[in-house]
């Protein structure tokens, strides 16, 4: 079980504050979507949560331990990250890349065990890319690569999975496939998930809790119905939209209003 507590966190790169006084606490088993315009701090927040960036102010606790006191190896055994894109300069096969997920568990001179290999083939199967195992990672399509990286993260057997726009390179079928899989791991195995999402409608469909960021602050935090309001989206994204209801699930469904059609609003 894992929980993440981010309290009063400030963070800045060299050129100014990116996150201000962020408070966010995620309980074990939650599935949280981070929303917000480009540059609102979603990716930075994920990097702080994974411990590779250190907050300027405030504290981040993983399972109650201050994350800055934990070793990378310890964190990597609990937390897996799927970044937006990886470039691998050498010709590793898909199977080898997924095996990299076992890195935090391997001893320096030992070979991977039968158990490691089984976890890798399970991860490949779960993501549905077993047939790619011998293919070179560099020769795969963007969507396939995204799945390989997800499989690598799952081979890590994380308790907390951080995803940075996991569906951004995928077509609509693959988007659904990935999100349903993540959702299934969340409900079935209690995997805690935090994902930065661009697509508001997908976020509304697959996440129980959404956190909306604006200019480095938490602007709204709650259920999709609470967070995705016409006023809120208008304010945070400066976009005019209408929020309808998904005909089957009842989740909020955002409809974009093209500028020329503004007068057709009710």
């Amino acid at each position: 079980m894992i929980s993440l507590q981010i309290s009063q966190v400030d963070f800045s790169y060299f050129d100014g504050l990116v996150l201000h006084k962020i408070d966010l606490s995620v309980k074990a088993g939650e599935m949280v979507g981070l929303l917000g315009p480009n540059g609102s701090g979603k990716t930075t927040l994920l990097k702080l949560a994974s411990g590779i960036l250190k907050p300027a102010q405030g504290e981040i606790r993983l399972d109650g331990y201050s994350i800055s006191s934990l070793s990378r190896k310890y964190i990597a055994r609990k937390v897996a990250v799927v970044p937006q894109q990886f470039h691998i300069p050498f010709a590793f096969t898909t199977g080898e890349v997924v095996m990299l997920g076992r890195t935090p568990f391997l001893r320096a001179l030992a070979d991977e065990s039968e158990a490691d290999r089984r976890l890798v083939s399970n991860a490949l199967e779960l993501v549905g890319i077993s047939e790619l195992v011998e293919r070179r990672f560099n020769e795969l399509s963007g969507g396939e690569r995204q799945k390989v990286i997800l499989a690598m993260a799952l081979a890590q057997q994380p308790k907390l999975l951080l995803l940075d726009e996991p569906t951004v390179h995928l077509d609509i079928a693959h988007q659904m496939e990935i999100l349903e899989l993540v959702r299934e791991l969340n409900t079935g195995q209690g995997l805690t998930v935090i994902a930065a999402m661009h697509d508001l409608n997908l976020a509304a469909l697959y996440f129980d809790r959404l956190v909306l960021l604006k200019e480095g602050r938490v602007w709204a935090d709650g259920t999709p119905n609470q967070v995705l309001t016409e006023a809120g989206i208008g304010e945070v994204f400066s976009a005019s939209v209408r929020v309808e209801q998904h005909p089957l699930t009842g989740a909020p469904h955002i409809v974009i209003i093209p500028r020329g059609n503004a007068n057709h609003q009710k």
Partner: protein
Amino acid sequence: MRRRNKLILVLSLLGVCLIAALFLASAFGAVNISLPDIAKMALNKLAIFDFPSTWRAVEETIIFQIRLPRVIGGALVGMALATAGVLFQGLLRNPMADPYIIGTSAGAALGATIAMLLPINLAFLGFGLVPVAAFCGALATVFLVYNLARVGGKTPIISMLLAGVVVSSFMAAIMALLISMSDRLQLNLQSVYSFLLGHISVTGWEQIAVITPLVIGGIICARFFAFRLNALSLGEEGAAYLGVEVERDKILILSLGSLLTAAAVSISGLIGFVGLVVPHAVRLSFGPDHRFLLPAAALGGGAFVIIADLLARTIMAPTEIPVGVITAIIGAPFFLYLLRRTRKEYAF
């Protein structure tokens, strides 16, 4: 499992190649000595066998005092450069990186030039001032480049590459300035030239005794980083997600690679292409997994330099060609062949 057995077979074959190269290179030179004789001499030395002598005493002296130190020196240089090449290419995620990429070569060359400039004739453990100065120059330059590239507690790889290029050019300029200003260096131009093009100069067993633990120790240490180098293929951030302490390991891998390079430079000057071609050849033939790549490149590099040095001293005998010229003449076309055969691996 089958793949594992295949890799063990390949490693054994490379080991056999290295030993065969050792014998071959010991046999040929100004005096050719038969291979069975060399084998018998070597076995006699182990004090287990006592073959009757079918060779002249002078041949035994040539083998043990001249050829073997040089051939073993060549093997160590090749192993060190190839391993350093793997380490730098893996760490910098740049298939074009060679052991000299972050300034080792320029630092070593400047160190050697300054040593040639000084009217001092010192010998230390069989090493003259020039190799010691080259060794120190190489390490000092890497240290300088690393610190220049440091920004806000981190050393981004890209700024290290840039700092390496600039520092190297600066040192090359200083070296050129020294050469044009100093009559002493003008007279020594031949030795400056020979250092820059690579020339294995082992004068006796003392040097081998100093270099061997450095190189073999370095190669063994390098093996400990195999998994982390694999993880570093994903980049610094990706490796950190997989539990690698990136900043710490960067220092360790850089130090290890630089130490290996400096050890090689101290007995051979600057031999190009070994650290570039050998890791590539292994990677393109058997894949990029560092657990296999590191030992395979070391064995292959050793054999490659032994053969190159054999050619360097025999094909135009009694004139000796700089061994770096041979490694480039063999290495460059071979590299291009590999590149064209497997072009798709570099397409992205």
